[in-house]
């Protein structure tokens, strides 16, 4: 459906996107994820045609649209600011794309009503945007796009101005709607939780380039770089130097086939109680509801975060022993391998 090759864009000499390739299948919901300034919005605007690329090619549905302006592309965009026209009623906002296409009045009315029904805003047609809540405005903005039956729906952080609860329920609605319509969708966000929840596939971006693309669970389980590992979920990160086939972690030696300076990363939920594990003192416990987040300190003065079910709750000040069931090994930014560390020796340090 979408085939981008070698796309680059810079603004006033500052590169915003460098030589990017991306393919998106029909009906797929892809999230572009990254911190602000990573080029995700630029990529979206290039696809919409609102800005032209410096180099590269944009194929939409098999057609070369690189030079086609936004008003002749089969894409429709929902903006972060909802961008509803304040001087038009909800119905006129939604019907705009149809009026531009010169459809007969009766057809516009019917399609507008159907689109409003689809986003759950039946009967709102006579209201002005100023009379809508943030969530309602964003639904109208979505209806305004859906009504023209775009081949690709583009969403630029549409929910980031809304409160957490509303964001969550809108996400679920959007996902259901997108599934039902089989609509190819690109969703830009800086919120990794949002991306994990929505996407069929997440494209992680950093400094104008794609860092990694994978399914949410694939990204979580196998982060290709240290920055992806730290951006998607949480990681306990330790710097270590491997010598003679071994590396130290929390005062314990672990077998390590590679040598040199390494970064060891471990998910908080991958730490498990183990009578022969690394000793640590419980500093603080945060109740997350189903889980507890426990802040720990090793005798070496290293901070660790541990996620555990409520049943296993320790008390602050308690000394416990933990062992990682999986450890991601990075050299610089690059993942070397993920190991299940075996304890080699047992030497008490504390």
């Amino acid at each position, binding site marked *: 459906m979408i085939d981008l090759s070698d796309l680059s864009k810079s603004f006033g000499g500052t590169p915003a996107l460098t030589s990017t390739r991306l393919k998106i299948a029909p009906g797929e919901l892809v999230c572009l994820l990254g911190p602000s300034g990573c080029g995700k919005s630029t990529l979206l605007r290039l696809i*919409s*045609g*609102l800005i032209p690329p410096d180099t590269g090619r944009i194929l939409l549905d098999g057609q070369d649209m690189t030079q086609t*302006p*936004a*008003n*002749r592309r089969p*894409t*429709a*965009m929902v*903006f*972060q*600011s909802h*961008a509803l*026209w*304040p*001087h*038009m009623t909800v119905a*006129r906002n939604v019907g*705009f*794309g149809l*009026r*531009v*296409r010169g459809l007969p009045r009766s057809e516009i009315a019917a399609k507008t009503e159907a689109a409003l029904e689809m986003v759950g805003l039946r009967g709102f047609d006579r209201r*002005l945007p100023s009379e809508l809540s943030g969530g309602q405005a964003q639904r109208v*903005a979505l209806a*305004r*796009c859906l009504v*023209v039956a775009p081949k690709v729906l583009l969403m630029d952080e549409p929910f980031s101005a809304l409160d957490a609860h509303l964001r969550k329920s809108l996400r679920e609605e959007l996902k259901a709607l997108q599934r039902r319509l089989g609509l190819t969708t690109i969703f830009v966000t800086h919120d990794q939780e949002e991306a994990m929840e929505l996407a069929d596939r997440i494209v992680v971006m950093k400094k104008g380039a794609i860092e990694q693309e994978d399914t949410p669970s694939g990204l979580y389980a196998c982060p290709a770089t240290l920055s992806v590992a730290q951006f998607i979920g949480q990681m306990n990160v330790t710097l270590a130097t491997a010598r003679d086939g071994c590396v130290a972690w929390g005062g314990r030696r672990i077998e390590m086939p590679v040598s040199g300076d390494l970064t060891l990363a471990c998910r908080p939920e991958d730490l498990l109680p183990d009578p022969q594990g690394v000793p640590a003192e419980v500093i603080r416990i945060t109740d997350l509801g189903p889980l507890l987040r426990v802040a720990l300190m090793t005798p070496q003065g290293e901070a660790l975060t541990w996620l555990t079910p409520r049943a296993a709750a320790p008390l602050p000040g308690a000394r416990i022993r933990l062992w990682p069931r999986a450890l991601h090994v990075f050299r610089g930014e690059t993942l070397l391998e993920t190991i299940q560390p075996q304890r080699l020796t047992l030497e008490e340090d504390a």
Partner: protein
Amino acid sequence: MRRFPLGGLTLLTAMVLAMLGPVVTVVLWAFAVKWRYPQILPTEWGLKFWAEVLSRQTITGPVLTSLALASVATTAAALICWPAAFAFARLRFPGRQLLLFSFIAAQAVPKFALFLSIAVIFLQLGLVGTFPGVALVQGLSAMLVMIWIPTAAFRAIPPALEEAAFDLGASRLRVFLAVTLPQAMPALAASYVLAFVAVLFEVDSGLLIGAPKVTTMPLTLMTLSAQVVVQDAAVLCVMIWLPCFVLLLLTRRFMTSRGIAEGLGA
């Protein structure tokens, strides 16, 4: 219950009186037939002076001239300034800021001196004492308001509003007519009315460029005010004040962008 803010209320009353007091006095004079010193209100009311003023060609003539002049000058200025304001707001060209500030710089020169030097040039061009000559100078003095207010208005429109329309298939022209113009319209209308009223009451252009053949309303008003009969000037004042007041009110009340958008087929 909150205590009544007596100090604030006193200040408010004082300000309203200070602003409206003179206007009320003029209005009273316009309808007064007899009003002698110790009386607080006129002792005899009537439209006697209205009939008199309206029957005098030397007064009604300049009023009509001034209205025509202000309409032509303001409309011409709008036709030049509004597109320019759009360009100022949207385009980044070298010297943009300088050009914008040159309008303010020109406005800071005393009108009298500026028009005097223009009059010298117009004398050679044969424009002194002609309708186009006065209209040209008045249009010039209307430009500041007509550039600055609309430029700010165009710039205040969020780009996403226009992008959304363009993205949904509208042509550039359609985007402008359906989104940009309705959003800017209240400010455009306000700039028009402000410039119109300012031009209408402006004295120097009539004095320096119009005289002796084109007599404007403010000049007549000055002549009348210098005479003994206060009522003539008061009647003329009210006569000209009323339409301007209504015009200013209309801008506020009816120039909403919504109505205009539907008129333009958005």
